[in-house]
C-alpha cells in the first residue's frame, strides 16, 4: 500500500461509511473493506482504474468530481477521502467544503509545493519544478492547483474548517522531528484530517 494510505487508514473507524474521491484502482477501499469492514464507495473517471475497482470488489461510480458532489446527501458518510487529487481539481475550495457537507470527517493529502526542493528548483532554475514525484511539464499536467502547507492551513481557516491532525512526510513517506518543526519547508506530502468547526 502507498505509505500515505498507511497513515490515512489509522483515522478510519471500523464499520464506518467511507467515500473516496478519486479512488484510483480501489486498493485503499479494498483494504478498508476487508480489514475494517467499512461500507464504501469510490468516485473515479479513469476507465482502467474503474475496471480494476470492480475486480477488487470495490463499489465505484464513474463521476467527475469537478461537477460537484450534489448527488450525495449531507452527512451520508463518516469519512470522505481526497488522496493526491486536490491539485487536479478545478475548484479545490468548493470540493473541500462539499466533502465536509457529505461527510463528518475529511482526509486530504497533497504534494506540498512549499517543500525546499520546489523552492530551490524555482529559485535557482527559474522554472516550474519537475521531479520524479511531480513529473509533468506545466503546460501538460493534470495538476492545475498546487499549494503549500501554509496555503492549505489558510484555506481551512477561511472556511471554518478544523484541522484535527496535520502530518507531513517525505517522498518515502517517512516523518521526523525536523518535519514536525518545519512542515512547510521539509514536508513533501501533506496529510490532513479535518472536520467542520
Amino acid at each position, binding site marked *: 500500500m502507498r505509505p500515505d494510505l498507511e497513515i490515512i487508514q489509522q483515522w478510519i473507524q471500523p464499520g464506518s461509511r467511507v467515500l473516496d474521491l478519486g479512488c484510483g484502482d480501489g486498493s485503499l477501499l479494498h483494504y478498508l473493506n476487508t480489514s475494517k469492514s467499512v461500507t464504501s464507495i469510490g468516485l473515479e473517471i479513469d476507465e482502467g482504474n474503474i475496471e480494476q475497482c470492480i475486480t477488487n470488489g470495490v463499489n*465505484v461510480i464513474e463521476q467527475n468530481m469537478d461537477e460537484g458532489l450534489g448527488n450525495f446527501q449531507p452527512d*451520508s458518510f463518516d469519512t470522505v477521502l481526497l488522496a493526491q487529487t486536490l491539485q487536479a481539481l478545478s475548484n479545490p475550495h468548493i470540493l473541500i467544503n462539499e466533502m465536509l457537507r457529505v461527510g463528518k470527517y475529511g482526509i486530504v493529502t497533497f504534494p506540498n509545493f512549499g517543500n525546499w526542493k520546489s523552492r530551490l528548483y524555482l529559485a535557482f532554475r527559474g522554472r516550474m519544478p519537475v521531479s520524479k514525484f511531480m513529473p509533468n511539464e506545466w503546460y501538460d499536467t493534470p495538476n492545475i492547483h498546487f499549494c503549500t502547507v501554509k496555503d492549505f492551513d489558510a484555506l481551512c481557516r477561511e472556511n471554518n474548517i478544523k484541522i484535527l491532525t496535520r502530518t507531513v512526510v517525505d517522498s518515502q513517506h517517512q516523518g521526523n522531528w525536523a518535519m514536525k518543526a518545519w512542515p512547510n519547508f521539509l514536508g513533501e506530502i501533506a496529510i490532513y484530517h479535518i472536520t467542520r468547526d
Partner: protein
Amino acid sequence: MPNTIPSDSVGIVTPQCIHFNEELSLRSGNVLSGFELMIETYGELNADKSNAILICHALSGDHHAAGYHDEEDAKPGWWDSCIGPGKPIDTNLFFVVSLNNLGGCAGSTGPASINPETGKYYGPDFPVVTVRDWVKSQVMLMDHLGITQWAAVVGGSLGGMQVLRWAISFPERLRHAVCIAAAPKLSAQNIAFNEVARHSIVNDPNFHEGRYLEAGTYPKQGLMLARMVGHITYLSDNAMREKFGRTISDLDSSGSNFGRDLRTGTLSFGFNVDFQVESYLHYQGERFSENFDANTYLLMTKALDYFDPSVDYEGDFSAAFKNANCKFLLMSFTTDWRFPPERSREIVNDLLKAGKEVTYLEIEADQGHDAFLLPIPRYVNALSAYLKRVHTEGSADAS
C-alpha cells in the same frame, strides 16, 4: 447455420415449457388461473443452489438468450455475446435462467395462446400485465426451480426495469442487481413513441380489434411501422451514419451526401425507396412483423409506460429502494437517447440517497440504445469483472 458451433457457445439448447397451476393475481385486478412460461437454462446449478442468474428480456426479447436451437439455426440467442462458457455471464460458473415473459409470443402464455375457457385465442382479452406481474411470475419460476436466492438478476432496457422491481419487491431473493441502459420510469417522449407504435397497430385494417388471429390475418403494416419507429429510437444518429453513410455516390461527389447512402445510385424523383436507411427500416419492420404478435407488442409497450416503482412511495424513488438488500451495478451508453445516461444516473443517485452499494459506468459507445446487446469491450469487461466478484462473494459465503 454456423458451420461449427463456436467453443464459447452454450451449444444446442432446448427450451422447456413450465406449467403453473397456481393463480396469479395481476396488478390490473385480473387473475390468471394458470399459465405457462417458456424458459431456457444454461450451465449447471451448484449443490447449494447459490449460483443462479436470472436474465430478464427487453421489449422484443424472449427465452432464447444464448446458443442455437438446432444445427440449422442461422443465429444464436439474443444475448449470445454475453452468455456462454468464458463469457461475462459465464456458464462455467453460473446456472443461467432465461424466460419468455408472460404475455409474450414465444411460447409463454400470452395473447396468441388459446384461452382454455373459450377455446379461442386470447387476443385482446389477455389482461395487461405489468413489470410487477412479470417479477411475481418469475418468483414462481424460481420456486419451481428450487432456487431461494439469485446470485444476480440481470437485464437491459425493459429487462433492467424488471431488475429494479426485483430489488424493491423481493429484497431477500437476490444478491446483485445488474441494470443496463434502463430508466427509473419512462419520459413523456418515451411514452409518445410507444403511442405512435400502438396507434399504427390498432388502426391497421387487419387488426380486427385484436382478433386478427381468429380472422386468419395480422396487422402487418401497423406492426411494421411500430417496429420502424422503435428501431429509429434504438440507434443513434452516428450509428445510422456509420451504417448508411459510407459511400459517396456519383450524384454527390462532394461528400455532402454523408449519412445518406443511395440505394441504386440515382434518385427516383418519386415516393419510392431512394436511400439505404429506408430499405433497411422496411426490411427490419417486415421481418419483425412476421415473427412478433401485435397484441404482445401493445402489451409490452404498456408495461413500459406503466413502470414506475415510485408510485407506492409518493413519487420518491429513494424511498422505494430503501428496503433493497442487494448490491447494484448500473451501466449506460453515451449515445443512447432512448434511455440516456442521465436516466441511469437518476437511478444511481436515488440508490445513493437510499444508502445502497452501487457501481456505475457510463460506456462510450456509438451504437445508441442497441449498444447493450453488442460486444463493446469496456462494457463486456466490466460486466465480466463484476460477475466474477459476484461469483467470488458467492463462494466465500458458502464456505
